[in-house]
């Protein structure tokens, strides 16, 4: 540690000079320069496709740049591979964790250490406990990863970097999967690391987080460096402007709506988990009213996936008297029949589930929207193409045309297309999962407005998201899931981020159990 402190004032920990990376048809990084001092928390900001991931992957040795230099502690280095990066002292926590669920924490950490590192550490479990105490990470080396929450898994990933005496920690959208309370805990850890001289490169979409903890920020747009700033001197709005340019509108507050007619109910919905690491649903009750958005908050893996697939019918187990649509029991209907009865669904994975990657957009329209385009078993491809074209223009989907393959679209554009396709079926109930996850600000605005318009036309929307700000923006009533339990449903104006955050952590479960015990 003393060495790093000595260097703190003298020279940057990491310096990037004119990093350029060309992908076929896309200049991902165009002569990007950046400086990172020891102990600095530096934000890397930009919309999707701005080149953030490419840049950090270059630093971590996953991507080889076409041109440019990387200086590490003042010396030019060539980071050929992630293991080379780790040798230098660079650690990275990816958005999608790379942990083996069937192994313990210590085993997972051991896997990425070299023999010499293991030798120098000695007792790995003891080292993990040490670091855990020092940084307040609360990581037990003997626990199996599948028993850990997402937040705990993230701490295991951070621990993995700490064990290797990291000098630069890269975090790719670390807060997107955490409860607000967990975010606060993470920030404490990051601040402590920073005070000890560890540099942190922090990728985020959430601007208020950036203004809260980052010393400096670099902003990319379309692969180019557009500016840097000290977030403490800026507001989220001014930073957003730098990210998207002046053109994009910002989401303003929206009016809340209330429905009176029930269209959908879940009554005492209980269901065992289908997979060993799945979540069982426990006594879930809620109603959906016409013309309202019910938002369900929760950290990933707390039963959202199971809830959506049993409602949509993808999970084809039969239920009796637990799900009703328009007053009729739909628990034994197939997914196709539920769709024909007015249920539409925007799933979390767009490519590979919401759309077939190798098929054109007109074919992907037919995937769920066949009404009017199939006559006695024959497909009217001509009408379908025209309709796909109209979806593309109505939702400003950026693509070459209705013949474009789904996989050639960016995530945000494909999401706009899927959203348009599902809304175009005039559903009575729309289930919508993480509608703007990984979508740029402009597309998110369009998606929000499409959802609100559908609500105002009288549809009921079940909105499941990990983005609590988005839920507060859109939802008329809110609840949270934790470990397969659903919290009470409350009006959005009558609750707070703090309360929902506590519900996400499961505080309501004990309360309701106590009430049951009293009754």
């Amino acid at each position, binding site marked *: 540690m003393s060495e790093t402190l000595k260097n703190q004032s003298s020279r940057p920990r990491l310096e990037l000079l004119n990093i350029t990376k060309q992908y076929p048809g896309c200049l991902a990084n165009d002569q990007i320069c950046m400086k990172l001092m020891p102990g600095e928390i530096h934000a890397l900001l930009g919309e999707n496709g701005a080149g953030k991931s490419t840049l950090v992957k270059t630093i971590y040795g996953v991507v080889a740049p076409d041109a440019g230099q990387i200086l590490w502690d003042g010396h030019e280095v*060539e980071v050929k591979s992630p293991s080379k990066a780790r040798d230098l002292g660079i650690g990275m926590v990816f958005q999608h964790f790379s942990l083996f669920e069937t192994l313990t924490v210590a085993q997972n950490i051991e896997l990425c250490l070299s023999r010499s590192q293991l030798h120098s550490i000695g007792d790995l479990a003891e080292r993990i406990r040490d670091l855990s105490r020092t940084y307040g990470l609360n990581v037990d080396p003997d626990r199996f990863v599948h028993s850990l929450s997402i937040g705990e898994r993230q701490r295991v990933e951070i621990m993995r970097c700490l064990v290797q005496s990291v000098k630069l920690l890269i975090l790719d959208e670390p807060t997107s999967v955490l409860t607000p309370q967990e975010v606060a805990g993470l920030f404490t850890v990051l601040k402590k690391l920073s005070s000890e001289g560890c540099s942190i490169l922090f990728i985020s979409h959430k601007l208020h987080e950036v203004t809260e903890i980052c010393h400096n920020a670099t902003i990319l747009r379309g692969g180019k460096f557009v500016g840097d700033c000290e977030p403490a001197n800026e507001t989220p709005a001014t930073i957003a402007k730098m990210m998207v340019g002046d053109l994009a509108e910002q989401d303003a507050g929206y009016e809340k709506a209330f429905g009176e007619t029930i269209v959908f109910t879940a009554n005492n919905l209980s269901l065992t988990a289908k997979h060993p690491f799945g979540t069982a649903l426990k006594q879930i009750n809620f109603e959906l009213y016409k013309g309202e958005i019910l938002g369900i908050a929760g950290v990933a893996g707390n039963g959202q996936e199971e809830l959506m697939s049993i409602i949509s019918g993808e999970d084809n187990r039969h239920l009796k008297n637990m799900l009703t649509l328009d007053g009729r029991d739909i628990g034994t209907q197939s997914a196709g029949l539920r*769709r024909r009865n007015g249920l539409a669904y925007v799933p979390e994975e767009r490519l590979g589930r919401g759309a077939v990657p190798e098929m054109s957009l007109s074919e992907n329209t037919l995937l769920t929207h066949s009404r009017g385009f199939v006559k006695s078993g*024959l497909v009217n491809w001509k009408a379908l193409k025209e309709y796909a074209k109209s979806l593309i223009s109505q939702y400003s989907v950026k693509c070459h045309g209705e013949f474009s393959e789904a996989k050639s679209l960016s995530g945000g554009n494909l999401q706009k297309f899927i959203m348009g396709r599902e809304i175009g079926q005039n559903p009575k109930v729309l289930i919508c999962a993480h509608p703007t996850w990984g979508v740029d600000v402009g597309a998110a605005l369009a998606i929000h407005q499409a959802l609100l318009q559908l609500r105002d036309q009288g549809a009921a929307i079940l909105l499941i998201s990990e983005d609590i700000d988005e839920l507060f923006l859109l939802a008329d009533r809110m609840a949270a899931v934790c470990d397969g339990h659903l919290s009470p449903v409350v009006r959005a104006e009558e609750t707070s981020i703090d309360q929902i955050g506590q519900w996400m952590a499961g505080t309501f479960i004990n309360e309701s159990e106590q009430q049951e015990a009293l009754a």
Partner: protein
Amino acid sequence: MIQVQARTEPSTLMTFASPFLAIVLTLIFGSLLFTALDKDPLQALHVLLILPLSDAYNISEMLVKMGPLLLCAVGLALCYRANMWNIGAEGQLLAGALGGSAVALMFIDSNSALAMPLTLLGGILSGMAWAGIATFLKVKFNSNLILTTIMLNYIALYLLIWAVHGPLRDPEGFGFPESALFSDATLLPVLSDSGRVHLGVAFAIVSALFAWFLLSKTHLGFKIRVYGADEPAAIYAGYNSKAISWFVMLFAGALAGLAGVSEVAGPIGQLTPNVSPGYGYSAIIVAYLGRLHPAGAIVAAIFLAILYMGGDLAQIEMGIPIAVVGMFQGILLFFLLACDFFIRYRIVPYREKMA
């Protein structure tokens, strides 16, 4: 130095060039093989590939072999499009031959106009039943379709051998393991004056055109394609995966059964233990060589039929063992799979990182 690099998207050029490249490589390999056997490679290739097309008789014989290959391949292509790995066309073909023969032998002394249609129906239903066993096991117990269909191939073969030694043996056949010759009313009409091209060949072409229409124009065909390309999307869209599995398997079973009964009620005219020289297995190669497209299957079936014919001719004219045909087919599939690798990957010169 060179390195292998993943393409950003599959190459359309390679998708179509791969079968031809594989054929060229197979021919080069074949030439080496013939040289090693002390045969003139050019003459051997001439006999193998050109002679089968040299006169009307040979062409008609080639078409007779194309029929069952194409019927089986069309059904398989549909199965593979839906990710149903049916390796059982051979068994379904034999079941069709056996079931059709059982019906045909009921009309041994009859001139009924129903004899031929009922025989065909018997074959088709038997093929479907055989495919149905494996499908049931797959849908109900999620058993591995590749294994069950292969095992059912052997069961069908031994069932057929048992039948010609037992219940279906010609009582006046001096104990040979063969059925009686079918009556004329049962046999498929021959389509041309010379040669043996029969109605079964026409069925094959029609089945390919029908499958093409099914895949490109109908909602069911679209669902089959979605199911094969992206199963989670098919489940998400609410498609009935069981119905799709049943449909493609029974369709393939019906076509393979038709191929089998068309052989016994066509060129052979009776049930013998040697109904098929492995048409059901070769059809797998036809399906892949034809890029799992019914139209491609027509071209590929003609090519493999030429190889079958050529193998016979090479044995007669040059004393080349018939096993060479099997060798050729195997090598062809091998090169085809190897060439298909380049649809998704490419080889680029290795370059050091630019400074």
